[in-house]
């Protein structure tokens, strides 16, 4: 029997604001417990929430970036439940009217493109943290995280394999960092996924009953959890059991999912509009100002790199693999005169993808910490383009750059790596080579093209590799004509 896996993903992305979504307290990570919790965060009697505009702007940016509808009016609702790290006894979230609806994320698996539709994205506050380890017979409560702004991004059940789910999560992860709404730090829990997984026989129209795997904070866990869960569900059904709607947790140590609660003991959250907050209205002026401040998105960049910079589609794609690479690339070509950008951009892309990537990889260095700066790569490409350096010499210069020996021109100067391109000088060398190799010269004159290669080789040897090979070729041909 062939089975199909159906996956939808809910992602909690922590919005990178300075202060919390409904209070002025700092969102800094790592402070001592309850240091970043003000009277609003600990829900003292009488306190009230005030919406952080920056959080709204990040939600708007996300909506624009995914081609979604940004609702001009949305409503904050209270989700009521008791838990010690939920100080108000309710979470302020959005229920019936979220700020963002629709949109999509494009993914590609094995070269095949697929569109994953988004249902919605809404603003909400995070809860605090219960600390069970450090206390005997009681639990500690740390409310530093309480009130941290989250964007909950809900996808349609459009994914059909763990790999697609991971690709979706990766693309989303790249996008939220790209547009600067989330720092993407998964270890700190700033980007975490819940996966809704069900299975059905191939060709069936109805979805199977789903189980939700909570709080997956790495792509690897996401993949492992879905794979295990789907296999478990298939086996259950094949053994004649029914899947019961439930919430499960993934245990990274065993690689298994285990039951947390079934639908029967699900909460009735008693959602209702929060009377402490007015409806969130986004007028055209606000929307436009956010839209104008949006960074250029990857797809637009690819198009521009191909059209204006003459990059191949593959190179263009690799230059937007992350915001960091794109920033590096654009910084490297920023100093180049416009007349030369097409020629040099290609070289810059090659160097980033080639020697730089190899060196970073070999030395386990992140791009942001690279000793070879974007400006250096730009300078290097320029010296190749103006024939100062051959590609072989350029590699030597790159090594110097990596080791901190100075700027491109300093290294060329210091190590005498300048390419020989003075014709009269080269002609003198050519005369010497022809005189020293009469047989090869005769062969070439007689029509043996290959004989020229030996003469060029001799020339390069004589000039210690600094001659411009194309120029050498031309001079020899002229002299032997």
């Amino acid at each position, binding site marked *: 029997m062939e089975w199909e896996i159906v996956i939808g993903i809910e992602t909690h992305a922590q919005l990178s604001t300075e202060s919390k979504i409904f209070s002025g307290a700092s969102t800094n990570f790592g402070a001592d417990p309850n240091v970043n919790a003000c009277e609003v965060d600990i829900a*003292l*009697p009488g306190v009230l929430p005030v919406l952080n505009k920056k959080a709204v702007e990040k939600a708007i940016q996300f909506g624009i970036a995914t081609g979604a509808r940004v609702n001009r009016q949305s409503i904050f609702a209270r989700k009521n439940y008791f838990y*010690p790290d939920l100080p108000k006894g309710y979470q302020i979230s959005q229920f019936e009217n979220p700020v963002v609806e629709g949109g999509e994320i494009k993914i590609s698996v094995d070269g095949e493109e697929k569109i994953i539709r988004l249902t919605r994205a809404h603003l909400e506050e995070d809860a605090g943290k219960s600390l069970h380890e450090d206390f005997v017979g009681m639990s500690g409560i740390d409310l530093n995280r309480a009130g941290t702004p989250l964007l909950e991004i809900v996808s349609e059940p459009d994914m059909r394999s763990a790999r697609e789910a991971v690709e979706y999560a990766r693309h989303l992860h790249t996008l939220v960092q790209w547009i600067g709404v989330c720092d993407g730090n998964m270890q700190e829990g700033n980007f975490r996924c819940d996966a809704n997984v069900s299975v059905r026989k191939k060709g069936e129209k109805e979805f199977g009953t789903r189980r939700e795997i909570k709080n997956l904070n790495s792509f690897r866990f996401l993949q492992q959890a879905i794979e295990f869960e789907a296999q478990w569900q298939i086996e259950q059904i094949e053994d004649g059991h029914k899947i019961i709607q439930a919430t499960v947790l993934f245990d990274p140590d065993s690689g298994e999912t285990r039951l947390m609660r079934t639908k029967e003991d699900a909460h*009735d959250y*008693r959602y209702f509009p929060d*009377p402490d*907050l007015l409806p969130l209205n986004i007028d055209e002026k606000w929307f436009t100002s956010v839209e104008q401040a949006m960074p250029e998105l990857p797809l637009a960049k690819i198009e521009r790199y191909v059209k204006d910079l003459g990059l191949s589609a593959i190179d263009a794609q690799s230059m937007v693999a992350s915001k960091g690479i794109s920033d590096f690339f654009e910084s490297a070509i920023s100093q180049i005169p416009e007349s030369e950008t097409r020629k040099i951009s290609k070289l810059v892309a090659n160097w980033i993808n080639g020697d730089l990537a190899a060196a970073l990889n070999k030395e386990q260095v992140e791009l942001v910490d690279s000793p070879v700066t974007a400006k250096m790569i730009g300078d290097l490409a320029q010296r190749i383009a103006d024939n100062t350096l051959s590609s072989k010499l350029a590699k030597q210069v790159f090594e110097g750059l990596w080791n901190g020996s100075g700027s491109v021109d300093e290294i060329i100067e210091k190590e005498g790596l300048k390419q020989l391109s003075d014709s009269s000088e080269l002609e003198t060398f050519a005369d010497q080579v022809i005189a020293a190799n009469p047989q090869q010269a005769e062969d070439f004159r007689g029509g043996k093209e290959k004989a020229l290669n030996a003469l060029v080789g001799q020339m390069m040897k004589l000039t210690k590799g600094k001659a411009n090979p194309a120029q050498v070729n031309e001079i020899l041909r002229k002299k032997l004509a």
Partner: protein
Amino acid sequence: MFDKSLKELASSLASKDFSSVELTQAYLDRAKELNTSINAFVTIDEEQSLAQARSADQKIAQGNIQALTGIPIAHKDIWCAKGWMTTCGSKMLQNFKAPYNAHIIDRFNTAGSIIQGKTNMDEFAMGSSNETSFFGHVKNPWDSSRVPGGSSGGSAAAVAARMTPAATGTDTGGSIRQPAALCGISGLKPTYGLVSRYGMIAFASSLDQGGPMARSAEDLAILTEVMVDYDMRDSTSLKRDPVNYSANLETSIAGIKIGLPKEYFSDEVSPDVQKAVASAIGEYKKLGAEIVDVSLPTSPLSVAAYYVIAPAEASSNLSRFDGVRYGHRAKEYKDLNEMYAKTRAEGFGAEVKRRILIGTYVLSHGYYDAYYIKAQKIRRLISQDFAQAFEKCDLILSPTAPGTAFGIGEKASDPVQMYLSDIFTIAANLAGLPAMSIPCGLDDANLPIGLQLIGNYFDEARMLNAAHMYQKATDWHLKQAPLK
């Protein structure tokens, strides 16, 4: 000293007839003495009050005098005041000392007034008789066997008994106006959004509004000016240009149109109240007002809508009282759920529990549309009723309550009868309109009768003007409770 208006007190303090310390001490002494019988205050903290009074005296000596410098004001125990016990009338907050100031407390501090103490109230402002307070019921200064009304019953009784020059209250369904009526004082609930709710312990957020309680419209005007202020910490606070509410008190009201909603003049109103209100209408005619008939056809549904919306919001607002971070926590429990259950069972009184249950029920899956959504629709219709009525008139006049102060225990066992004592006050909260109560007579048993004026949005100045002109022409607001 005890008969002086706020303006007279300010002038006596400025001309150093007496000091703020003397004034404050005198009021504290009287309050302490009468409190043993009336129970209007839950907290009197002489040291804190007198420290403020001493600093006020220094300011007066320096000539640095604000509207209320040196004048003691009592605050309903629903407002957080830094360093003061703030109990909200509940065992749940019996030991809660507020670590911050409500916005209006900051405003009163800036205006120079002295916090004279915290006044008793129905638990979490849920009640119309002050019988639900954990700290014992408040007695009506006019007749100690009767209730003072609620939920701001402590403030009303304190003002009526001259235990304080003036007080603050809050009004969710009539909690300023009904006790003002039952105690023979003046009280104003401003337009929703004018007085910041920051630091006011929430009952029903979309209805709660703070306001002043005093002996006259003139005093109310001064206090309203202090209390009304935009506060960015309250998202429902409205940003408007400041209004001088005292400026037009003396303006003639000849030609203003006063609407009488026929639904508020039904048989439910006791004959004494009917008579007193009729005579107040006559007084307004003499002052040149034009009396017109208006209708508020949805108003009979206001109590029902209110008892869905207010408990719904309350059930959520009161969730924070869970024993985790502050307030009462049960002594013994097996696990987390039992800690919650015992803490809340012990910490909340019967009326609060009743409303949490109602609120939880109406918000539950499957009941939300039938109750909460329907109540919100009624709420909109009530607002529309008022909008239509205000096309025909400038102010709406009615009795504040159907009767005068009832006996302690009389309605305590019948919540619906109790809820009906707010039948004329609730609609203004649902619509967010300003409304006030002023004394307009005494019944056969020598108990005060209240007259309600409802204004259009932001029309507090006109309401105060109309109330003041009435008080210039009559002396009902000067009648004093028969205390020794």
